[in-house]
Structure formats: C-alpha cells, structure tokens
C-alpha cells in the first residue's frame, strides 16, 4: 500500500493496528524500474501507484505477475491528463499530445502493468465511483471462486488538479493491492468470506481521526478498515457501503 504517511505494508502495519500514531505526510510516489525509461518519465501518478502496490503485494505472496490475473479499480482515470486535454480542447489550436491521449484511458495502469511485468494474463479495469474498491473486491473474489485462479486486486486514486478538485475533492494519492487465492498458502494472511447484499448495518469506520479522514476522503482508501483487520490479525467483520442500497460484508479469519 502507498498513501500519505503510509509507505508500504510493513511500515504501515503498526499504524493500522493502532500500535503507533498515524502522522499525515504527503504520499511518496516513485515510478517502477520495471517500466522502460521513456515510459517511466511519461506515466502519471495512477500508473505509478498501481504498479508499486501490485508489485509489493505479489512480493509478499511470492507470486509472479505472469501467472496472476488482475483487477484494477479506481474512481476515475488520470486527473492530470483529463485536465490538460480539456484545457487544450478549450483553445483554438486544440493540440493534444498523442501520449497524453493514450494515457488518458481508464485502463492505462492495467496497460502499463502488463507492459512492465510482461503479463499476458487477463486483466480488467473497473469504475464504481465512491464504491470502486468494493466493486473491485467483489469482482476479484468472484473471479477467484469461479475460475479457481489467483487474482491481484489493485485499487488506486489521486487528487484532481483544479478546477476539477473543487468539484470532486479527493484529498490524497493512495494505492493498495491484495493477492487473492482460491486456497490458503504459506503466505496467506487470512481467509475472507464475502457477501454482497442490501444495506443492513453501519459502514465500518477507522478509529484514528486521520485515517478516517483518509478513508472517507479517498475512494481507494475505503479499503483501510479491511487492511486494519489484516494488520491486527483478528477475526472481525468489515462492512463497506455500495450506495444507494447495498453493501459488502467481509468476515475475516486470520490464517495461523
């Protein structure tokens, strides 16, 4: 995971477990060395977040990207590209950079992931607005259960530049990834029992005010309560709303 003051899973576990105090700091985003140099210079924040989170999760899972299908999910495409393209279109010249155009597709992170990791495994890119994480988790879990194959779920979001930011405030860059498998392995943290259904109980919130602001301010950070339970290695249930009327209920059971 990568977020403001959250630099990787190992460093973030004590924070999420409540053992240390969360301190906000700007998200540190670096471009993966797996990308060819020219691409490394030109990709935007969502691509960097997604590849970094995905690689970290696969490392913990001791899996290869070339053997793992992927589900990418974000509440939006690249905000910087959208802004630049729309600004250009509002001029008379309308000069659009071809790279910026093909990088503006919602599935650009999935495309660059497959180029960087050389994975030809099936990949999908979803959008569920504020429920993008829940949609991604549901879809990834369904793929694991139905196809009996491992899947890496990668969720990410970034702030829009103005003037879009005022209309759609997302307060930080955040990315996370989970590797889901049909059976437990030596690397498994927990087993998840996932149920999608009508709204019945309150959505799970974070105890720390700072982490709760992140959870409610960044759609991909709706994953924080689940990450918190995984960090604490406890058997608990997390509820994530899927407005207008549904929610995802995830019962977590730690593996040894």
């Amino acid at each position, binding site marked *: 995971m990568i977020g403001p003051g959250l630099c990787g899973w190992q460093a973030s576990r004590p924070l999420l477990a409540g053992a240390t105090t969360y301190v906000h700091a700007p998200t540190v985003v670096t471009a993966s060395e797996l990308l060819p140099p020219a691409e490394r210079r030109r990709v935007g924040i969502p691509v960097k977040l997604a590849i970094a989170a995905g690689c970290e999760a696969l490392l913990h899972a001791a899996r290869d990207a070339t053997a793992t299908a992927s589900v990418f999910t974000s509440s939006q495409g690249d905000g910087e590209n959208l802004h630049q393209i729309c600004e250009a279109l509002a001029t008379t010249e309308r000069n659009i950079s071809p790279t910026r155009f093909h990088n503006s597709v919602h599935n*650009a992170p999935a495309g660059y992931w497959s180029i960087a990791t050389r994975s030809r495994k*099936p990949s999908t890119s979803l959008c569920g607005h504020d429920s993008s994480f829940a*949609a991604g988790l549901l879809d990834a879990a369904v793929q694991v259960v139905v196809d009996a194959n491992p899947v890496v779920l990668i969720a990410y979001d970034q702030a829009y530049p103005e003037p879009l930011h005022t209309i759609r405030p997302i307060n930080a860059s955040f990315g996370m990834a989970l590797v889901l498998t049909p059976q437990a392995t030596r690397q498994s943290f927990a087993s998840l029992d996932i149920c999608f259904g009508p709204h019945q109980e309150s959505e799970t919130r974070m105890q720390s005010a700072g982490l709760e602001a992140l959870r409610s301010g960044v759609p991909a950070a709706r994953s924080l309560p689940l990450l918190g339970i995984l960090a604490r290695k406890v058997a608990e249930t997390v509820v994530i709303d899927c407005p207008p009327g*549904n929610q995802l209920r995830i019962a977590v059971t730690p593996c040894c």
Partner: protein
Amino acid sequence: MRPVAISEISIVNCLGVGQGATIAAMRERRSGLASCNFETAMLDTCIGQVPGLDAFHVRSDLNAYDCRNNRLAQFGLQTDGFADAVAAATEKYGAQRVGVFMGTSTSGILQTEIAYRHRDVISKALPADYHYAQTQNSFSIADFVQSYLGLQGPAFVISSACSSSAKVFAHAARMMTAGVCDAAVVGGVDTLCLTTLYGFNSLQLLSPAPCRPYDVERDGISIGEGAGFALLERAAESPAAGAIMLLGIGESCDAYHMSTPHPEGLGARLAMQSALDTAQLAPNDVDYINLHGTATKANDASEDQAVFAIFGGKTPVSSTKGATGHLLGASGITEAIIAMLAIRNELLPGGINTKDIDPALQCNYLLENRDAEVRRVLTNSFGFGGSNCSLLLGTAG
C-alpha cells in the same frame, strides 16, 4: 463454461434505431458514416453519428445525468422492447438480483469539454450546472442504467477502452455463476466527443474517408457512436431450439504497447483460443468471425496473423466497422449483437468500403454478403493498453 442465455438485445447507432435497422443496413450493404460536422470539431474525417441526440431528453427525474452518453443510453433502453424485457426479469428475480455491467471509454466527457469552455473568467471555476459524478465519471453509465430500470443489484463499469463492452459479458457470466445475481443487463455506450476525435487525430489514426478494413490502402479509423444492451440469464435446462447463447469467452493482455497491437497478435491469439477452449469448440466449428478490424495498418495486420494462425484461410471473416464506424467502448456489444443478428438472419455480412484486399493478409475476408446457415460466431474486441476480449456466440445444441 456453462452457456449463458441471451434473452433480449437492443441496439442504436448511425445505421438506425433497433435490430431491424442494423440488419437492414447489413443486407443493403449501407454505411452510416459521413463527413464529420460534429459540434465544433474541424477535422478531415468521417464519423458515425446518431441523429437527434441534441433534442433528446433524459427522463426528468434523472436530469442531473443529462449528457450525450446517457441520452443515447436511454434511447437504447427504450428500443427493441428492452426495458420491458428487463421489467419482466425484475419481476421474476427481484430488483436486487439483477446486475448491471456496462462498458464505456469516454462516458460523459463531452460535458467536461463544454464546461472547460465556460470557466469563470476570474476564478477559473467550472460552471455550477456541471454535474461531474452523473456525467463525466465513468460509473455514470451504469448508475444511470440502474436508476432508469429501477434495479438494485451489483453494478459497475468496465472501462478498458475498445474491449470494454465485450468484457462486460465475462463479468456478468461470472457474477451469475457465483450466485451474486441471477440476471444481468450488460452493454456499452460511447458517444462522439472532441477528446477521441482530436486524440486519435494526434496519433494519426483517423482516416479522412470512410474506413476500409483489410484494404491495401487502408489508412485509419472512422469514429462512431452507439449503444447496445443485452439481458443475460442462466440458461434453462433445455433451451429453445435456435436460442442464442454465450458459449465461450477469452480475455488476455498484449504486454506490448499502449496504442499499438502486438505485431504478431499474440494477445489476440490467446483470447481467441481461450474463447474456443471455454466453449469446448474447435476452430472448424466457427462459421464466421466478426473482426475487430478497425482499418488501421497495424490492427488489421496483427489481427489477421492471429486469426490465420488458429483458423487458417477458410473461415469467413469480415469487419463491420465500415458500416458503423469504430464505436470504441461500445464496439464490443455492437459487434456481439451484429454476430447474433447474423445467426438469427442466416446472413454473413461482407465488409464494405474495401476495394482491394491487402495481399499481405491471409484470412478469407468477405467482400460480399453470403446467405448461410450460421450457428457459431466469434467476435473480437481489442483495446488500448493491449486489452483483448473474444466472445463465442451460438445457438443451443
């Protein structure tokens, strides 16, 4: 995979409104492409525009969703009795048991383009009547469709460029197999906007003339707009004779480049082979392939290599983008529906606009319509980012 029943379909594009209009255009070998005079675009290209969308209104309770993309969506839902078929399914299964999985590439981006032309002179803020979530955001199309139809099941958008509204079939089939829903509305909508017109222009992928797939002088795409929907349900124990079903699905990535396909079409091969494998069919079982066939030099060449490697030079193939244009995020559903119409009407549509087939291409590309018994059709959709999806459609039994 267990076959999935396709209970109803609807389609709207530059060929006209409804299945009847599309199949008539196929029979008469008519194109809907015309010189681009869309909005404020000043480009030397041809487009497939749906007439009347400027005057079309979304249902008044959904006014916040008003944008070209959602208007076309509603138009599609009102066509071919589709909304009525969904109402019957909702009655049968319950609103919470019907999912919505939609594909789009640009959603309501035209609203954002227009909003950027009306920023406050001093503050540079976007106008107050710009509704980001209900128009620009990619989820808007699924949200709008779900709201319009009164559905309450799982809903999200797949936005993987030109493979989007083929992949929706895969997502729905898995959700139904897993028991998350019992039926699903799948489809895709993409509408004309300046981003794709000027964007593809910057990549030098737009043809000035109506596109001619497989032609030795092919020089790029013609962008079109359209909507298509399909209602999917679990197949009955004994499906009715002639019922058209989803038999196989294949998905893959190229792992090559964002906007150029793998030269040998390796990703495309994986997707097509996977579609055959999941359907438990052999290449000889396929009666016709509806190609992605965008008419760029690179796509047609790489797709031809991939198709030939699996099917050889006998299986009839064609691209229908000469008629409809490239509908981007709506091309998957549009061509899946064309495949179904080919089966139902026993008609293989020959490609149009093409004059001289590129001698470097080896597949059996049809230049004329052919009446034939059609049982199994493969349809390809390949998108930016190297996202590939092949669907195998056919009659039960």
